[in-house]
């Protein structure tokens, strides 16, 4: 056992050494996002309610004019583990939106105020309309975007990410993208007309104009009204939207781990006792 284990470790070491020697995967994403540091990272991570509420405000007042979020219902905003707005607040909010329902008894579609169970209404009736309004580009739906975006960290760092539980590639990328509009394009790099330079976007040229500027959204809780703060808050909100049970998952995970480790310990000593009369 020990012999084979030592051999296995050796083989793994050789394999890793060869990885390190080979040129790492070309990073097509361009600039690497910086780790922004999130309250929801790590084994005990949890969302910051205030941050999710602010992030939602940014989404609603800025991003929602272009981006849909059609897997989220109004009721989700008051559920445990999310922004946890009060039921009254969410009812009030929903009633400010109009949704199409029907057909009614006369066979006609009609508009009514949204209810808690309704999904967030989309800014455009369909993808074509969205593209037409954005010069051909499609603003992706927000519901899963924080899990649908990542950036490559190469073999070494990826192995480390597993051990250190770095899982926030998506929010880090979005945060970097939103704060990354003020860079100058490198000499000789030209995007098509209508595209904006952003070193964090794969290829460097993005159809989304700089979406948010300092002071654009008011914060009732006195948090700084800067692009830096807005992007953190909206990225955290998007992570919640993509993984609404993240908090429960980590909480249960901790309990499961404690249980399994104790159980393994008990089994180990039982096994040891039973095997103590057999040389092996």
């Amino acid at each position, binding site marked *: *056992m020990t*012999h*084979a284990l030592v*051999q*296995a470790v*050796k*083989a*793994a070491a*050789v*394999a890793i050494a*060869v*990885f390190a020697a*080979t*040129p790492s*995967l*070309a990073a*097509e994403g361009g600039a690497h996002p910086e780790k922004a540091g999130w309250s929801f990272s790590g*084994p005990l991570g949890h969302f910051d309610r205030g941050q999710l509420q602010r992030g939602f405000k940014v989404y609603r007042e800025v991003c929602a004019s272009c981006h849909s979020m059609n*897997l989220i219902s109004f009721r*989700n905003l008051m559920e445990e583990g999310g922004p946890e707005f009060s039921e009254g607040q969410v009812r009030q909010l929903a009633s400010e939106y109009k949704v199409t329902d029907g057909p009614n008894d006369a066979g006609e579609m009609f508009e009514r105020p949204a209810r808690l169970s309704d999904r967030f209404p989309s800014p455009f009736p369909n993808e074509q309309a969205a593209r037409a309004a954005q010069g051909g580009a499609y603003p*992706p739906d927000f*519901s*899963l975007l924080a*899990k*649908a*975006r*990542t950036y490559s960290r190469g*073999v070494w760092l990826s192995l480390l*990410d*597993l051990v250190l*539980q770095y*899982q926030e*590639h*998506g929010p880090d990328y979005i945060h970097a993208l939103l704060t990354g509009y003020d860079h100058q394009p490198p000499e000789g790099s030209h995007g098509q007309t209508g595209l904006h330079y952003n070193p964090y976007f*794969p290829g460097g040229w993005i159809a989304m104009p700089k979406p948010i500027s300092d002071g654009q959204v008011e914060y009732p809780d006195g948090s700084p009204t800067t692009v830096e703060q807005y992007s953190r808050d909206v990225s955290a909100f998007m992570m919640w939207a*993509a993984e*609404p*049970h993240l908090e*429960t*998952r*980590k909480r*249960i*995970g*901790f309990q*499961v*781990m404690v249980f*399994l*480790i104790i*159980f*393994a310990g008990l*089994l*180990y000593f*039982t*096994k040891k006792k*039973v*095997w103590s009369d*057999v*040389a*092996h």
Partner: protein
Amino acid sequence: MSGHSTYNPQNPVLKWFEARLPIVGLIHSSFVAYPTPRNLNYWWTFGAILSVMLGVQIITGVVLAMHYTPHVDLAFNSVEHIMRDVNYGWLLRYMHANGASMFFIAVYIHMFRGLYYGSYKAPREVLWMLGVVIFLLMMATGFMGYVLPWGQMSLWGAIVITNLFSAIPIVGEYVTTWLWGGFSVDNPTLNRFFSLHYLLPFMIAGVVGLHIWALHVTGQNNPTGVEVKSTSDTVAFTPYATLKDGFAVVCFFIFFAWFIFYTPNYLGHADNYIRANPLQTPAHIVPEWYFLPFYAILRAIPSKLGGVVAMFSAIIVLFFLPWLDTAKVRSAKYRPLYRYFFWIFVVVCILLGYIGASPPEGLYITVGRLLTAYYFLHFLVILPVLGLVEKPLPLPASITEAVLGPNHGGVSVVPSSSAAAPERRA
């Protein structure tokens, strides 16, 4: 499953039942009284781990199927419905998705264990070949399962892999159309993949039954590779192996739980959280990690047909392994040269995986070709020749001697060919 049982029920009801259907006796002889070599190490616990993981996959899979909709317009959202609205749906899905990866980690360790200790050699050839059948079924199941959430990688992975069949001469096009149920990967494809993904694990369960049956006919191999010769070489399955396996399974679950609860999307691909779109090809189409070495072999050959043939041969060659390896001695412990070639082979497989994940350009192509050549060289040249030229180290007379030292050679020495069901011969 080794013949007549030592099970003697005293309870009249059990007695009555046993006389009519001796299933309790079968279980008793297979999992309680079954003699297992006393010197097995933890690499031998992966069979139990695999059995448990198969159970985990089937149970989570059946419940997921209650909430999943196999339709191109609904599949993606139905998975998100599971993640968001079904009670503990996120747990079920993360267990199932990561469970597949755990299953492959365990099966690769299990197979390399077999390679190291020569477990595929006579009299265990059929046992080994059933294992390869299980492996093939697992790959088919894993591939079709990944298509079900209907994200970008689901669709494009399915397109790449099913297109391979069009390389078959003459009938290729017909076969591909037949597989698709149309002229592209579309709703009929998703429907049949769901149906098959539900079916195959039960076929795996059936073959695992045969696999364990064959195991219990020949008895287990062990780290010395020397057959069981007397009762002093073995211990009863329960409590010895049961507890050791149980401990290993719980340790494996700790590893599994790390993925489920803390890094659930680590082994997946971010693009699969984007709904499938036949009009938009992702920048890199990469299969799941467990297919990467075979994907590298596929791409190493410049012709499409050649690549497909090489890829399938890489697995088919395993069926012939018992006859390609000419060495009489089983365990690498006593094979000074094979031991090195074994570890070289392990490294080659890992590197093939790395090449499979890299873009097919420049140096990666050359290295991929060299590694592919070595993969086949290992089986077709090195193993046959090694058995003829290598001088094995002296073998212990018995397992007992290997454990306790000389002069403990066991009580009654019987020829190794009658090692099966040793409890009746001791």
